[in-house]
């Protein structure tokens, strides 16, 4: 009822003001500048992968598709894709399964030693991957898992599990605990509360976490670089080696390889965005408040 007190005129006025203020123009200008440069960066890679020779001028001298063939065979892109998908899939699944319950417990309970537990989860995210990656790689090699798929999955899980926890804990904190209390009074056990009450409410957060972990894992370079071997190299590590050792193969082939990598990440992104969009997350609060109105 209290929400009815807001007259619609006030809202309209505020909206109009925001869209015309100079600060808006500044923000949009910055965003557009960012977009133009982003398009330039990606465009350069794509254009160069189709070009025959490109030393000077706005565009390459001629066009060809042959470098895609070179890249596909020389870099064994099919094999790299398979490895990347296996690693990313396993990491997302395990991280969500292990991270979600922990996030719930951390959001709802205060217990002795919580700070230490929290620190345990915060550190892998708060530390640059390279710092714990070097000791971790030493450890994984000691376990004889160095260079294996399992070793790469383990290395990627170390930041992924805390990431899920960190994304989900604030989401669960936002859910009013009184809803759970009410369910508990009505006789629901923890398991029922989790599946019937919490799960539907945290789905947006869960999907956001899964999307972020998936995208992060595919793009995560440092840890995979330190742990992977010839049979467990992911696409991004192979791309780094290709760029770093440029000169062995023509630049256009490296660009073509980059396009393969780009297409696979964009594919994952598009698939993920079909189920969760940041816009949905943004408008969720607004929608519910409008429904109340």
């Amino acid at each position, binding site marked *: 009822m*209290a929400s009815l007190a807001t007259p619609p005129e*006030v*809202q309209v006025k505020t909206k109009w003001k*925001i869209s015309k203020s100079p600060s*808006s123009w500044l*923000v*949009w200008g*910055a*965003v557009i500048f*960012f*977009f133009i440069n*982003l398009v330039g*960066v*990606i*465009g*350069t*890679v794509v254009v160069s992968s189709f070009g025959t020779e490109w030393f000077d001028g*706005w565009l390459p001298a001629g066009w060809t598709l042959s470098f895609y063939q070179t890249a596909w065979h020389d870099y064994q892109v099919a094999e790299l894709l398979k490895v990347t998908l296996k690693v990313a899939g396993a990491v997302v699944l395990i991280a969500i399964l*292990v*991270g979600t*319950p*922990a996030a*719930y*417990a951390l959001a709802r*309970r205060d217990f*002795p030693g919580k700070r230490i537990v929290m620190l*345990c989860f915060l550190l892998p*995210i*708060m*530390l*640059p991957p*390279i*710092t*714990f990656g*070097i*000791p*971790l790689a*030493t450890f994984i090699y000691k376990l004889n898992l160095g260079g294996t798929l399992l070793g790469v999955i383990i290395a990627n*899980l*170390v930041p992924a*599990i805390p990431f899920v926890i960190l994304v989900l804990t604030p989401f669960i*904190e936002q859910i*009013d605990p009184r809803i759970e209390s009410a369910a508990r009074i009505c006789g629901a056990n*923890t398991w029922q509360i989790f599946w019937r009450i919490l799960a539907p409410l945290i789905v947006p957060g869960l999907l956001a976490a899964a999307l972020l972990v998936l995208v992060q894992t595919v793009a995560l370079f*440092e840890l995979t670089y330190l742990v992977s071997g010839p049979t467990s190299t992911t696409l991004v590590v192979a791309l*780094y080696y290709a*760029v*770093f050792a440029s000169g062995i193969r023509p630049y256009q082939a490296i660009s073509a390889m*980059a396009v393969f990598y780009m297409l696979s*990440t964009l594919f994952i992104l598009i698939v993920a*965005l079909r189920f969760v*969009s*940041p*816009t949905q*997350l*943004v*408008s969720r*609060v*607004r929608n519910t*408040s409008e429904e109340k109105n």
Partner: protein
Amino acid sequence: MSAKTQSREFSSTRRFWLKEHGIDSTLLLIVPALLAMLVFFVYPTVYGTILSFHPANKAGFLENYKTFFGDPYMRKSIFNTFRIALPVSLVNVCLAVPVAVKMRHRVKGQRAINTILIIPISLGTVLIAEGLYAYLSPNGWFNRTLMAAHIIHAPLQMLHNFWGVMISLIISGFPFAFLLTLSYISGINPKMEEAASILGAGPIQRFRFVTLPLLAPGLAITFCLNFVLAFSVFPSANLLGNPSGDSHVLAVAATDVISQSYDYSMASAISLITAVCEITVVVLVFAIRSRFYTGSTTGGKG
């Protein structure tokens, strides 16, 4: 009979005590995640720390650290890392907040804008570095456009120095900061701003006194995550910067030691130094954060 009652009483007091301190079966939910962290994060880190005090050449236990701080080239990598990471994370967060604030209001083409902004995260630093290498080169589109528009007369030198690394970290870091800020800002109930508006607060006041305090905890996390990304600038520093000059950052120093001499002991020492530098900044940020409001962002009464 009485013994049974006593034991029941005892167990109920104990359960009560545990409940009072928040210990119940819910806590078991943490166990798998905690175990994974202990085995694959805490143990290797402790192992690496101990290893760093056992130098490969069997010299004194502080030998690795003496080598690092005694060598001006190595020592300067700390400064190089901060010089890149601090401004980049500040710029990213400062850009992300106004954009996120605008985006939470309904805007035409919002979904498209968000999608495009998220692309750089999914591409990762390696691809961004690869693309920037050609884009920022003297013959690249960036310099060509500026020269065609007569803004500059000679190509800007942005490769193999500090700037290339900075730009690549803004391109990959800004969308990340934006996405996180957006998710935190969308958790703030718009009713609070509406209430402030009714009380006569202008847009700047609403932002300064309502949105910003509620956003502060989220911003602290966003800054830290961005700082971490920028702190391990290993691929972009190697591909775009000058890895033996002003972008000889800690991550490059550590991986160089491994690839050149397989000295895991020295590499662990550099890792530890990196970690200490980084934690100092994070602790500072969270100390500042703890002075702000912490609690529900959805508002008390609906």
